[in-house]
């Protein structure tokens, strides 16, 4: 099938397969999957300047599907998602300015690639360690995996300390089970995710979802759903920005999304059958896969 905007010939079944895979990952883990979809589109011949914008466009559609499914499951904290959007957009701008500075210095490619690898490996190691410790803690305390406490983390004390942060105003997030937390803590977590998004690209769900769990104490299922909701808004903003710059082939995004829509339903439905620490443990290989793709890109000179 010929896509006239990008000027490439691509088998639509390949796009649908990529979309389905990324959709399942997104629905289950609450991540956009840019670190997989982007390299895949590039490998299919889409020009790199089109890859980022087109992938963001597809993420909007996929995240609508997955977040609606999670909303039906009671996993979306809309208040938290809207607050985080404000912090994310500010963070994206800060990250993008950092990239501009590196471009002027002529070191953007290497610095960003190395930063990406370090961040992704660190996230995998940390989430894996925390999930393992949580399961050890549950076994030691004799907590059944289906029990309400099963989503408790071995480092819950971090989130409790964040909740005690005194700088007001304080807000309640009843949908996340949080009685009181500083608004600045929420905005700070979102800003951090936005910085990573603006600096490293993509939706940064691999940062935001774990940050919501470990720093804010949001239950894993709610973090997944709320992250997807937030991505709809921030990726929508990114879609418009990149489309204005000529970096979006909406036809490619629409075709890829037809696979992602089905995958997102499957992925979101799977979260019903796994408790929080299992989801977090299953998340561990994803950032490592992304780091491997970046390393391959560096080695192969892309």
């Amino acid at each position, binding site marked *: 099938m010929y896509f006239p905007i990008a000027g490439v010939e691509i088998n639509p079944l390949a796009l649908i397969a990529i979309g389905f895979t990324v959709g399942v990952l997104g629905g289950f883990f609450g991540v956009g999957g840019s670190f997989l979809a982007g390299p895949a589109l590039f490998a299919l011949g889409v020009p790199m300047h089109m890859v980022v914008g087109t992938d963001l466009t597809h993420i909007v*559609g996929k995240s*609508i599907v997955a977040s609606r499914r999670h909303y039906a499951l009671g996993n979306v904290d809309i208040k938290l998602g809207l607050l985080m959007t404000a912090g994310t957009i500010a963070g994206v701008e800060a990250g993008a300015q950092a990239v501009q500075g590196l471009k002027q210095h002529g070191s953007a490619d290497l610095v960003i690639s190395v930063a990406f690898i370090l961040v992704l490996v660190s996230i995998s190691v940390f989430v894996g360690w925390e999930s393992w410790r949580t399961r050890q803690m549950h076994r030691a305390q004799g907590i059944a995996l289906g029990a309400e406490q099963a989503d408790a983390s071995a480092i819950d004390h971090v989130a409790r300390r964040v909740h005690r942060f005194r700088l007001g105003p304080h807000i309640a997030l009843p949908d996340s089970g949080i009685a009181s937390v500083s608004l600045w803590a929420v905005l700070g977590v979102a800003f951090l995710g936005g910085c990573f998004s603006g600096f490293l690209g993509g939706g940064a769900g691999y940062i935001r979802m774990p940050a919501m769990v470990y720093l804010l104490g949001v239950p894993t299922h709610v973090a997944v759903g709320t992250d997807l909701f937030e991505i709809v808004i921030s990726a929508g903003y990114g879609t418009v920005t990149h*489309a204005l710059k000529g970096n979006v082939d909406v036809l490619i995004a629409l075709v890829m999304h037809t696979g992602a829509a089905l995958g997102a339903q499957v992925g979101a439905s799977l979260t019903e059958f796994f408790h929080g620490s299992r989801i977090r443990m299953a998340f561990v290989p994803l950032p490592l896969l992304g780091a491997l793709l970046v390393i391959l890109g560096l080695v192969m000179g892309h």
Partner: protein
Amino acid sequence: MNENVGHSGIRRARELFSPSLLAEIGVYGLFVAAYFLVILHAVGDRLRELYDQHRVWYAVVALLLIGIQGAGLESLTRGLMGLFRRRE
């Protein structure tokens, strides 16, 4: 918290990959094929024109298209999953 978690959760999750899911994929595939042939081929050249000559409108149309498709396919896939689950 859903009680069907852990090892029984893996068993229950396998139930998702059942004949009903295959049937759903088949029906969904037919819808998608018809959508490609009728809609996407028809609008391709128009979108190219917008992209070349009216970039602001292209950005708006792109966001609207993906949003409408997102909502539409979510309803379709959710309906199909519900239909085939009830028949099991």
